[in-house]
């Protein structure tokens, strides 16, 4: 698996918000054994250049940082935050969020495509947080995105994969684009289910950060994602209605 030419080992991407402490965050990142963490740049701390201590702790984790534009409600805000993130973290990567609704935090897909175009033209490598809509996915790829991050469910809900059909068709339509389920994951089984659909990776935050034991939960997700991926590659059997005996049934002449 690679994102914009960078080969990656772990298929779990962790968010860094909402943890009880930076120390627990660091332990969770180690337990998850992940290669990428996402970091939100609140505009004010970015503007004042005073979030440096926390960002320093993030950089010290020794993993690749994918800054995000969480909480941005307009194209302009998202673009400005992305520019700030490039400066702070020295990476062209940006997880692009343009929020369309304050209650559901669902993506404003029109603003998302517009911002993706602007940022791609400026040399950013954009990871768009989007819905599972095929048409939007097409536009995002046209805008220059080489990775797509459809939601499983609204951010922080823990509902899991709300629209499995849409996620499956997205996978079928874009077999060669890295696809990451981003948002809505609550339990390790949700992440495993995403991987069994053939998704390349899973990005989550609240499910680990707000767990009773974030470090243990990070480890549980890492194993679920590994299991889901291995299961996908191993070729699951097709579901069927009638029982299929795994040993011959003797003394039964009829198949009716």
């Amino acid at each position: 698996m690679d994102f914009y030419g960078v080969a990656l080992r772990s298929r779990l991407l962790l968010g860094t918000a909402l943890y009880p402490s930076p120390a627990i965050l660091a332990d969770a990142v180690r337990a998850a054994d992940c290669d990428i963490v996402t970091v939100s740049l609140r505009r004010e701390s970015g503007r004042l250049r005073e979030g440096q201590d926390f960002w320093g702790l993030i950089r010290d984790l020794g993993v690749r940082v994918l800054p995000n534009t969480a909480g941005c409600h307009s194209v302009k805000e998202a673009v400005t935050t992305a520019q700030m993130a490039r400066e702070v973290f020295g990476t062209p990567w940006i997880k692009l969020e343009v929020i369309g609704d304050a209650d559901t935090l669902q993506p404003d897909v029109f603003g998302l495509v517009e911002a993706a175009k602007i940022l791609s033209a400026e040399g950013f490598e954009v990871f768009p947080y989007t819905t599972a809509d095929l048409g939007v996915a097409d536009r995002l790829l046209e805008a220059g995105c080489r990775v797509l991050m459809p939601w499983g469910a609204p951010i922080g809900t823990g509902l899991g994969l709300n629209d499995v059909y849409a996620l499956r068709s997205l996978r079928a339509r874009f077999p060669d684009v890295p696809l990451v389920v981003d948002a809505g994951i609550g339990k390790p089984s949700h992440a495993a289910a995403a991987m069994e659909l053939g998704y390349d990776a899973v990005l989550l935050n609240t499910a680990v950060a707000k767990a009773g034991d974030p470090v243990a939960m990070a480890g549980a997700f890492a194993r679920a994602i590994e299991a889901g991926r291995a299961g996908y590659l191993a070729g699951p059997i097709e579901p069927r209605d009638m029982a299929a005996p795994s040993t011959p049934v003797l003394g039964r002449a009829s198949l009716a």
Partner: protein
Amino acid sequence: MRVTIIGAGVAGLTAAIELAGRGAKVEILERGAEIGERACSWAAGGMLAPWCERESAEPVVAELGQQALDWWPRHIDGVTPNGTLVVAPRRDAAELTRFAARTERFDWIDGDAMAGLEPDLAGRFDRGLFFREEAHLDPRRALAALAARAMEVGVTIRFGVEADPEAAPGDAVLDCRGFAARGETPDLRGVRGEMLLLRTQEITLSRPVRLLHPRIPLYIVPRADGLFMVGATMIESAARGRVTARSAVELINGAYALHPAFGEAEIVEARADVRPAFPDNLPRVTRRGRVFSINGLYRHGFLLSPAMARQAAEAVMTQSETHDEADRERLTA
């Protein structure tokens, strides 16, 4: 033994009382012109809520925090032992279940029981959590009362003095500067918090109420004269700039969601300050030579300062031997 304490915030004042109680001759050097002026404890909520804090803090916070419940009433007047109420808007009901799963020593109460505790909240919430053993105080009155108490037991306080711990006089020095010690404490970081003081006579509360919210842990603490403290944001930033519009909107929205009467309240004050925190968000007592320090009280200044003050006072009075990290020692977790 002569001990110089640097900083007259909640850490310095509690430590002064503990040291004086052990027979030390204590002088506090405070950079501000008066109590609270330059202390982040001035912006605190003043909740003595060890069990509620378990929602996001480690077990040791609840353990050490329980000491605050008897320490404060023994040293000052004005501690209100009425417990804490935790509620959630209907759409965020799952937050209440989550809070309950992470905490202990509470009762689930229904709307009627809540109306019994807080008549002005009657009919507003179907259920909530009641932490009956917790308490609260007004941090500004508490700091003033504590300073007065300290002076009664022989502590002197000098204001308007910027002191360097290494150069300060005394047999021992206790550095209680909080975030101002950032320069010599590389793993200390600032966590910005913003709060509002609202005034309304239209509603009365007898205890702190926490309104669970997926983004910010919002609480409203009643104070005298119709004042309510609404707090607090948690932003990974050491910026002391004024309260932002976004934060003010979030805090006011929360208060309004608790009770519409807050919509008509007067905004008396909006304040932002920076909490000193270590990476584990737990406080530490450390020592380097004759300089001891209490720092990293994070959002638990009033809750954990009694326990830290005791530990620091013990360490100073016994001048405990250093035995690790060359001459730098972390004495507590």
